[in-house]
């Protein structure tokens, strides 16, 4: 009797895994050798960090009323409006992307192209583009947040639509219902939990993003942060960072609470 050895993977699988490990290590080594890092800066970093935090303390609380509150509210509006805009724009794209609703491969691909390009471009980059179009301010920020979120919302919504049960759809079709009714009464009830989940999730992300798009001039608290840094007013920087932190935490708590209620 020949002794047989049992192996978990085929040679091809092991080769593929090994190739990936090798590629990863090579990429790391090559990157470490070529990236231009000044080692002195790294050694100096702890001192510089300590110095920075020393300058930040104490936060300039008095500045909140005059320079921060308004900007913070603006950021929240940008996040909220951006999310609403994204949902409005992503709904048609999601309908096009779902192959059971739009049985035309060319349109599915078009929708997927829109979704991928929306996600590939970072919010800050979208913000730069829309600042060039609409000028600095909240309008550019809102639209940037909206455009970036299309990819995220549209992809998840499209997937939810594709997973829908066909039964109710066929029942309504057999009864001769027009298309809007089919969507409202057969698809919508099935995707609405996913829809609200996506909305909350994206809003939470957008609250974080709306805090930074001001750095390129797209409105909100980021503009206040940018000004404070440019003027080396570190106490104000600390206050703004604390405010952003508080808002982000509150948004996360709100999202968790609402999710528990509706899902």
């Amino acid at each position, binding site marked *: 009797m020949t002794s047989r050895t049992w192996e978990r993977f085929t040679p091809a699988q092991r080769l593929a895994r090994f190739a990936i490990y090798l590629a990863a290590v090579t990429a*790391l080594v090559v990157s470490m050798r070529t990236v231009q890092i000044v080692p002195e*800066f790294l050694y100096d970093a702890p001192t510089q960090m300590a110095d920075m935090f020393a300058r930040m303390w104490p936060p300039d609380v008095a500045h909140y009323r005059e320079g921060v509150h308004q900007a913070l509210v603006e950021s929240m509006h940008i996040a909220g409006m951006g999310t609403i805009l994204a949902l409005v724009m992503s709904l048609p794209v999601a309908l096009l992307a779902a192959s059971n609703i739009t049985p035309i491969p060319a349109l599915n691909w078009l929708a997927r192209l829109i979704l991928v390009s929306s996600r590939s471009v*970072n919010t800050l*980059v979208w913000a*730069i583009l829309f600042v060039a*179009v*609409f000028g600095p301010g909240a309008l550019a920020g809102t639209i940037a947040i909206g455009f970036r979120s299309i990819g995220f919302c549209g992809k998840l919504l499209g997937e939810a639509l594709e997973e829908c049960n066909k039964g109710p759809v066929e029942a309504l079709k057999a009864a001769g219902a027009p298309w809007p009714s089919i969507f409202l009464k057969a698809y919508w009830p099935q995707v609405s939990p996913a829809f609200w989940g996506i909305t909350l999730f994206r809003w939470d992300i957008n609250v974080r993003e709306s805090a930074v798009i001001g750095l390129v001039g797209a409105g909100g608290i980021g503009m206040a942060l940018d000004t404070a840094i440019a003027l080396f007013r570190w106490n104000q920087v600390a206050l703004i960072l604390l405010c952003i932190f508080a808002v982000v935490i509150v948004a996360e708590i709100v999202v968790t609470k609402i999710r528990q209620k509706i899902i």
Partner: protein
Amino acid sequence: MSAVNTRRAFKPNWLARLGWLAVIGYCVLAFWSLDITWDRFVIGLENGAKFLGSMIPPNFERWKLLLGNLLETLEIAVIASAFGVAFSLPIGLAASRNLMPTWATWPARILIAICRSFHPVIFAILFVKAVGFGPLAGILTLIFASIGFIGKLFAEAIEEISLKPVEACRAAGAPFMSVILYAVLPQVLNRFIGFATYQFDANIRNSTMVGIVGAGGIGGTLFAAFQRFDYDFLAAILISIIILVMLGEYLASIVKAVFND
């Protein structure tokens, strides 16, 4: 004849209708307070047409600069992913409540929460102040972002494992490292590779942006081109970013496919 008593198949949901009304109300309020007007929008559209016009055709003349920047972006992503993943393994392990005592989970959880709470760009600003302009600041930023993301997911993955192999190993008197190696890791390795490839993908996206605040990579060139109204070069940079990101996504999908069977 009396009014026909039509049966309605679907009852009107007044609460939902009120909710939609509230959403519309909020939109009006927000439009008003953000000072967004139709005129500005229309003027913007005209600007947009001009802007697009000056972006086309994309200008690839400075392709050497572009390629160098793309390479730096990629290097930032690779190094940050490697270190971020390496650091988030022990931190995620320490944060998992089912294996670790409370005194270990709390600090790890707080660290993860801090890493997650700020947008990477804010970390990038702070690191640029601390270690100067250049890729180092970008790498440190993305390491923090990776710890926040993978650490959290990894801790959650460990909390979901079956404890039976762990108990078996412990009953056989295995030391702590063996318990981790033979009872915990095999259960979470696949998901962990999924997180790691996703994070690599995310790091490529984010490394294109940290340059905007001076932390290395293509973002700096992008912002400079924008400020100098070099819109045709801007278009070239955007196209190459999209290609790079798609390439990253493709690579991540290959790695996932290899490890998933």
